[in-house]
């Protein structure tokens, strides 16, 4: 007998939190670019940019984590 499993998906989340977070991250990158530029070493800016990729992945993984009660 076929039993259809019901799945839930995220239809909506708080966009204000998401966009504020993104704006702050972009401001952060801008400030670090500004600070790094005078030191003739953009390493810190590039490192922060590189960290932003896993940070976004972690953020989205946590957002789509199916059941927070299991944490």
């Amino acid at each position: 007998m076929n039993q259809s499993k019901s799945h839930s998906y995220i239809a909506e989340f708080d966009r204000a939190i998401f966009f504020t977070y993104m704006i702050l991250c972009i401001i952060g990158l801008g400030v670090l670019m500004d600070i790094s530029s005078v030191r003739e070493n953009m390493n810190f800016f590039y490192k922060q940019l590189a960290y932003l990729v896993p940070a976004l992945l972690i953020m989205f993984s946590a957002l789509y984590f199916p059941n927070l009660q299991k944490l």
Partner: protein
Amino acid sequence: MWVLIVLGLLIGVLAFGVEVNGAKRFLKLGPLLFQPSFLARIVLILYLAGLLSKKQEEIKTTNISDLIKTLLPFLVTMLLMYLLILKEKHLSTLVISASTLLGMFWIAGIRKRFVMALFAVALIGGLIVIAKGASYRGERIEIYKKYSLFTKDTVAHVDREKEYQTRESLTALSSGKLFGTGIDKGRAKHFFLPESRTDYVFTIIGEETGFAGAMLVFGLQCFLFWRAFKVSLRQEDLYLRYVGLGLALNLFLNVLVNVGVAMSAIPSTGVTLPFISYGGTSLLTDSLAIGLLLNLSAKRKEI
């Protein structure tokens, strides 16, 4: 399981940690450096939220020994983690974590006098650490007394080299005036403030974009806290509510400490400004907190 992983990582820092600026707080993972103490803060919030939601009736007791018995597994874990974090000389993260957990106790409905007693114990513990611990902590208090936003001790004698960052931070902030010196025209980042990309990033914002720019950034952080607080209070499930409130409080306390240090409203300590300061671990763990808060806010539909 998360508690064991974090304890393992914190012990790993003591055994194989990398020293940066005189403090051994980092684990080297390939080309990246990671600070487990940041993760410890989130794990303690999840652990406490679980305990408070499961023992909702027991924590409202009027008997202190019953309360300690209920909270004992958590208190032991917390103390163990805090001792390991203290070994890393990371007092600021400990203060933020302890304040967050006290806030959670308060919100969960533990009797106010017990929360105040826990606060007193934490305060006495903190004072003992400052008095008996590394000498630089005492020096920072002296610097704070001299430059404090609230009380100025003009006779305090502090080594000019040691008060350097605080003095430069205040000079830079005041030179920013209302609209700042202009982007890329600031003076502090030209080696006047060595920690300008981490602990004093707010100073750079204040100097180059003035009071208006600094207030915009601070306002965005306040808005984030307010939204996160609102989302958390909407949760019917107590565990989710406490997780949300704990995460929101943790992020906002970070903001308050960072901004407070830049303005000399509190003694100097190394805390990053969430999402803005340079720092891989803080960006990763703060993003994890935002992801969890967004998860709480999510409305799900069945397929």
